[in-house]
């Protein structure tokens, strides 16, 4: 069974057509990246798959559950990290992890503390955290729930090189143990390193899709950034 199957997905915001009928699938344990410039519809696609906004057309299934039909079931097996997400400022880091653990079975808080890598600061109030610290806490929150599908919108946004690298390593490790990742990013180099397959989005449609190595070969490019520039020309 495919982890994610998207067919002709469409979403409009009034007269603006944000997503114009895209299709893709993600295999179980795969890291699939959606890349593209800001405003091309990446976040909209992730929000639809995370069940927080409704689709206007097409179909999408997550582990066989239909988006718009089985949303409550889907929320039990996914974990979503929004772009620029925050955490409850008056809670301490540890309290936030414990709060989220109330909603998922089998949460590993000790593992989450390890992923967050905040040391003693995990016992401090979140309002005292830097942007990078909050992001690490949120990534830990996502993975702590042991989701079948983790949907990450710009997972390393706000992180420094060392922390970003650590998060990528953790994602790869979780994927190797069976977690499926759907990632959106405009950091092409990150996606090239991290993803098994990628979809290039532009103006609400997928303009190219494949493994990073295949795409580089197809477009005779040194990296995915170059592929992207050649595709959208």
């Amino acid at each position, binding site marked *: 069974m495919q982890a994610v199957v998207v067919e002709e997905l469409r979403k409009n915001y009034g007269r603006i057509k944000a997503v114009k009928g895209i299709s893709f699938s993600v295999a179980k344990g795969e890291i699939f990246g959606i890349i593209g410039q800001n405003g091309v519809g990446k976040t909209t696609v992730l*929000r639809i798959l995370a069940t927080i*906004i409704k689709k206007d057309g097409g179909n999408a299934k997550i582990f066989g559950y239909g988006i718009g039909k089985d949303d409550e079931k889907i*929320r*039990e097996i996914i974990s979503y*990290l*929004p772009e620029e997400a925050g955490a409850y*400022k008056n*809670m301490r880091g540890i309290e936030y992890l414990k709060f989220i653990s109330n909603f*998922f079975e089998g949460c590993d808080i000790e593992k989450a503390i390890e992923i967050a890598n905040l040391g003693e600061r995990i016992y401090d109030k979140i309002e005292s955290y830097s942007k990078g610290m909050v992001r690490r806490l949120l990534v830990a929150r996502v993975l702590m729930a042991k989701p079948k599908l983790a949907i990450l919108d710009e997972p390393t946004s706000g992180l420094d090189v060392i922390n970003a690298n650590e998060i990528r390593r953790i994602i790869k490790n979780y994927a190797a143990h069976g977690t499926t990742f759907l990632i959106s990013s405009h950091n092409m180099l990150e996606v090239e390193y991290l993803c098994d397959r990628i979809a290039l989005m532009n103006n609400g449609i997928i303009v190219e899709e494949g493994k990073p190595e295949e795409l580089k070969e197809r477009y005779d490019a040194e990296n995915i950034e170059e592929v992207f520039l050649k595709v959208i020309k």
Partner: protein
Amino acid sequence: MKIAALVFKEVRELLTPATILPAIFMMLIFAGMGGMIGGMEKKAMEKPNVEIITHDNESYASFYTSILKKYCNEGKENIAVIEIPSNFSSLIKEGKKAEIHIKWLLKGTGIAESASITAVRKAIEIANNELVAKIVEEKKINASIIFSPVEYDEYTIIKNREVATAPEKIISFFSSQSMSIPIVIMIMIVTSGGIVISSMGMEKENKTLETLLTLPIKRSYIVTGKIIGATIVGAIIAFLYMLGLRYYISSFGMQEKLAGFNLNGMDYALISISLFFSLLAGLSLCLVIGSFAKNYKSAQILSLPVSILAIIPMFILMFQDFSSMSTPLKAIIFSIPFSHPMMAPSLLLLDEYSLVVYGIVYSAIFSIICILIATWIFKTDLLITGRIRK
């Protein structure tokens, strides 16, 4: 368990120094004002310091002076000097009006000064009455008959009930109820409602809402968690206000009991139910309104309509009884769910149960409709995109 976690989260986020300190501050202001008023009343009851200079040693002057001394202290820091001239007794014996000279010694122009002045005037009034009694009794007439020749045996009929007391006492008793209860309920609605709306604004501003919406829980649980959390925080804040307000109101010495008008256990239960559904109606309405908040600042502006809805019945019910209102005004007051717990104590004291029960039913229906709308909104795109999409 999941709802408990959501309620804990709401309380944790909302019960901050920023929400509690203003309530404590207001409580202290009310308590301080009550203390000042109580102090002034106490001062008015105390014997004032007065210097009494008597130039007449005859019987009436001596008697008058002795009464004044009984109700005034002669010491330092006098508020007045009372001088009794040498012809005081002789003028009264001749059947003419006597005269005393009062020189007031004001140290300032504050309201506190007036308490001592009132106490001196009271002492002079007592001395005058005692002097009248003495003059009358010397003529072998019972002074009490002169002062009060007619005894009142009065009854008041209100809402088909006969009460052996003066109407002013009944009005004063009900006024004391209708002054304090609407204020407390208004504060509770405005505070808790503001908290719910702010909570929605904060969720959007802090970008925590998207995470909340992807948790594996029913959207109605999120709505319920927010309402219960705000109720708890609102109740704590209202309790703090109430402590200060109660001290403030008690400083006026308002009547708290009146024979024939008592609330029993059933009445208190109805008041509690009325308050619960009114609060639920208010908070669920606020959750609907709060869905439109873009951030904390816009949430503050959105709180305004709810505050107005709570203030309108408060002011009207403070000065007018529901039964004496015009029909259109009755319809307006009844349609605002916050009116019902404000009216309930007065209505129950008069055994008007039906209106209280109708109010509870109306508030419950209002709450259910608002909760359904709020849950529906949580299922649409409105919270994230600002647009409705089912």
